[in-house]
């Protein structure tokens, strides 16, 4: 067992996230690697929410579809997740409500997967130490932690840190966890060997019910699984648990962003919240604008003056920003927007994930102008891409769109310390020297040149002024509708695309034959490999699933190459064309319905990728699912 999957499920507002965060940190502190994946409805209270943690002794980037442990906080949760159990994966359901709903369908599912159940009388235990319904969840965490044979102090430390700002309740929280832990040590009822039927447990019976097996076989397997994982435990003490929204916020701070404009919209609202929480430390202004039009206009105004301003939104908000994306292209004022994708069209599914806005990012905004579209691949990468986006935006004086999605923005990635020295601040052709400023002519601002990049200086500088003109204009920014300057100025602005495409880094090709073989300590010589090779291509968050899929195939000694695109527009085509020509069976993986990257590649290279794995139900690709879908191609 090299990956164990735990899910906490309940109603929104029951504390699912808090429990998930505590457990994730606790597993990390135990020396393991984690990946936390959240699902929740667009509701404040009620509805169904879950927090899944995948645990391993090597880095993880994706969620499994099938569970080992489900901890349910309400009756209905069993219905939501019955399909996530399989016989091949030993599984247990912990429940702290007496009778989780198990009717025919669920009963069949749990029976066929041999799922076992255990009841924790958490509320009663919680009340015994002065707790209530909310803290009863910590009782259950304590029990689960003990059942899995893990070190009590680690869990208690994490709980103390989590509630450190609430000293009044932290003692009760800790007492609850201890109570649950001790309960598992001394009183835990054995696991059931059969599924509980609806109505089978009466109130009087509920503590006596689970009296079947003295020691569950499933439990032993899971316990052994954990001790196996712990053999690979390593120093994770400096690792951080961060979501893509959190790394985006830190990336902005590190990039020298001094003002953030946004209108709340899932999945990027949290960037604004994290930055606002840090404002007393950073001094960065965080402005919640009246709409996304305002946010984008204010950002351009601030960038025009010479600070670094950032905005973030989702597809619907980006729709509103597009007129300013176009303005940025026209007046050559840098603009950076984080576009966190969620399924559309329209309001779509606000709290779910997609890669459906690639074409929007590339095409949104009227007219033809230079722009750059980057896609982050995980939370760590988000920290760096936000910084790179500013360098590109300022160097080329263009709009840059940083694509992320709900999966990256809101999942919890375990990452190492972020390197603040990796991306220096590059401001391009920005003139600040007093002498140089005095020599400038107004016409230098939009001077024609081969690179398309002209000198930029800031209002307030002691130099000739110019007009940042949204009408077609001459080199000073004076309006013109004459044919020749109109033709030349459009050419100037668009020639920046050629300059940019040459400067963007080459796409990355990952292979499980290089990094991973070394990681596992045995080298497999390529010429020994007679078996099939799987070639994948994707962008953005598909990087995450590709990483984990490669690891799985390596166990079967199958080579997987993954061609990853992160600098998507303008598209560098040389390496891409070679890869696709050499590997005509390449499979395109995208979380959308129309295969937008595939379309883009065809548009730019003429090559059509026939093999596609697409998904558009708001869920990311799960590990087992992706492997099944790749295997179905029978390559």
């Amino acid at each position, binding site marked *: 067992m090299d990956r164990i999957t735990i899910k906490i499920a309940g109603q929104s507002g029951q504390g699912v996230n808090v429990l998930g965060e505590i457990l994730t940190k606790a597993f990390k502190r135990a020396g393991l690697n984690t990946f936390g994946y959240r699902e929740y409805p667009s509701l404040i209270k009620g509805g169904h929410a879950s927090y899944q943690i995948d645990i391993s002794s090597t880095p993880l980037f994706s969620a499994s579809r099938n569970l080992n442990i489900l901890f349910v906080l309400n009756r209905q949760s069993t219905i939501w997740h019955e399909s996530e159990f399989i016989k091949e994966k030993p599984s247990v359901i912990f429940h702290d409500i007496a009778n989780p709903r198990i009717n025919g369908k669920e009963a069949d599912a749990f029976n066929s997967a041999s799922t076992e159940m255990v009841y924790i009388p958490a509320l009663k235990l919680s009340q015994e130490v002065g707790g209530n319904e909310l803290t009863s969840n910590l009782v259950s965490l304590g029990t689960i932690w003990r059942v899995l044979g893990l070190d009590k102090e680690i869990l208690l430390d994490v709980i103390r840190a989590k509630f450190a700002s609430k000293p009044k309740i932290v003692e009760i929280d800790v007492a609850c966890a201890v109570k649950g832990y001790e309960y598992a040590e001394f009183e835990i009822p054995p696991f059931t060997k059969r599924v509980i039927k609806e109505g089978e447990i009466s109130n009087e019976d509920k503590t006596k019910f689970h009296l079947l097996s003295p020691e569950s076989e499933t439990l032993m397997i899971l316990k052994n699984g954990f001790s196996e994982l712990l053999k690979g435990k390593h120093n994770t003490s400096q690792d951080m648990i961060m979501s893509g929204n959190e790394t985006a916020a830190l990336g902005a701070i590190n990039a020298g962003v*001094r003002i953030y404009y946004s209108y709340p919209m899932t999945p990027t609202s949290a960037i604004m919240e994290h930055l606002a929480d840090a404002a007393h430390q950073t001094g960065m202004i965080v402005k919640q604008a009246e709409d996304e039009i305002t946010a984008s206009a204010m950002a*351009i105004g601030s960038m025009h*003056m010479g600070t670094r301003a950032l905005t973030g939104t989702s597809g619907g908000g980006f729709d509103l920003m597009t007129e300013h994306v176009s303005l940025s292209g026209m007046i050559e004022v840098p603009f950076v927007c984080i576009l966190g994708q969620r399924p559309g069209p329209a309001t779509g599914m606000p709290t779910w994930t997609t890669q459906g806005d690639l074409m929007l990012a590339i095409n949104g905004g009227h007219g033809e102008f230079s722009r750059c579209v980057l896609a982050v691949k995980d939370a760590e990468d988000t920290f760096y891409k936000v910084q790179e986006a500013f360098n590109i935006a300022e160097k080329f004086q263009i709009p840059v769109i940083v694509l992320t999605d709900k999966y990256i923005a809101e999942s919890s990635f375990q990452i190492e310390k972020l390197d603040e020295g990796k991306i220096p601040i590059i401001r391009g052709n920005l003139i600040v020297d007093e002498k140089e400023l005095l020599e400038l002519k107004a016409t230098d601002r939009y001077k024609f040149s081969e690179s398309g990049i002209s000198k930029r200086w800031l209002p307030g500088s002691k130099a000739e002024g110019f007009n940042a*003109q949204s009408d077609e204009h001459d080199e000073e920014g004076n309006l013109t509708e004459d044919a020749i300057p109109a033709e030349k100025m459009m050419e100037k602005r668009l020639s920046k695309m050629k300059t940019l495409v040459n400067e963007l880094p080459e796409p990355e090709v990952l292979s499980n034959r290089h990094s991973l073989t070394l990681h596992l300590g045995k080298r497999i010589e390529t010429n020994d490999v007679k078996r099939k090779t799987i070639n994948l291509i994707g962008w953005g968050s598909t990087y995450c699933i590709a990483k984990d899929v490669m690891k799985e195939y390596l166990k079967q000694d199958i080579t997987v190459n993954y061609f990853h695109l992160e600098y998507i527009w303008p598209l560098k085509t040389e390496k891409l064309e070679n890869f696709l020509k050499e590997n005509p069976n390449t499979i395109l993986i995208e979380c959308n319905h129309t295969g937008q990257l595939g379309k883009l590649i065809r548009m730019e290279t003429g090559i059509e990728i026939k093999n596609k794995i697409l998904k558009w139900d708001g869920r990311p690709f799960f590990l087992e699912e992706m492997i099944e879908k790749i295997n179905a191609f029978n390559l």
Partner: protein
Amino acid sequence: MGACCTPNYDYESGDVKVSDFNAEMQPNWCSGCGDFAIWSAIKRALVELNIGTHEVLLCFDIGCNGNMSDKIKGYRIHALHGRVLPLAAGAKLANPNVKVIAFAGDGATYSEGLNHFINSIKSNYPITFLVHDNGNYGLTTGQASSTTPEGAPRTASPDGPTSSRLNPLELAFNCTPGFVARGFSGNIRQLVEIFKEAIMYQDKGFAYVDILQACPTYNKETTHDWYMQRVFDIKENKDYDLGNLAKAKETASDMENKIATGVLYKNESNPSYLARLEYRKDTKTTLVEEVTKHSTMELQKLYV
């Protein structure tokens, strides 16, 4: 080097001349347009305040007002229709050392960008906002705007506007304003004084001036002469209390008989947007000066 350039401009002495703002391109407004007066008055006001071309950012919306953007020198930005306010506010927040003046028409302000108008007053951004209010859309050839008189036929509404007329000052008075003025394009000297006051006020907050303006081509109702017969300078009323919001609102409500012009309301006690930011209270630098690598090491510790 033409008259446009300011090669000998002495940034240190700051001796500002009207010629510093004179552009080679000549205005192309219709004969008799009120924009000429606003154009002259803003240059005059800047010179009288000794604000050099590099000390101010002139922000223009789309419309006839925006055609001023290349008929005046200095740092200018000619943005999108209806969006000049957030653009200008964003500029000001980044560098409060530069005076920021936004120009827009009644179409941009009271229709396309109404949301921005309300929120800019409420947010009290420290900028000056001058509205060229000519009672219709000029540049798109004479459609009705929110300030077109009731019953007045316009392009696309031959039987008159289909919504009621807005008195924009009344709206402004309901948004906790700090500075509200009304000008008239027929009185340049008064405009200069109002503009100067509105520019000087801007560090305290949002200074809003609605300028009643002739549109000789399309507006046959509220013409230059029509206004001439009705406007009066509020300064004529010696007892007028600038700090009385209710009275100012009442004074501004008459748009038919006696139309008050001048600075109608002024209150310096509303904190500006920047003054509300607790976490920047002791900061002396501008956001432009602060662009540098800011460490996240302390913040990273929260995630360990």
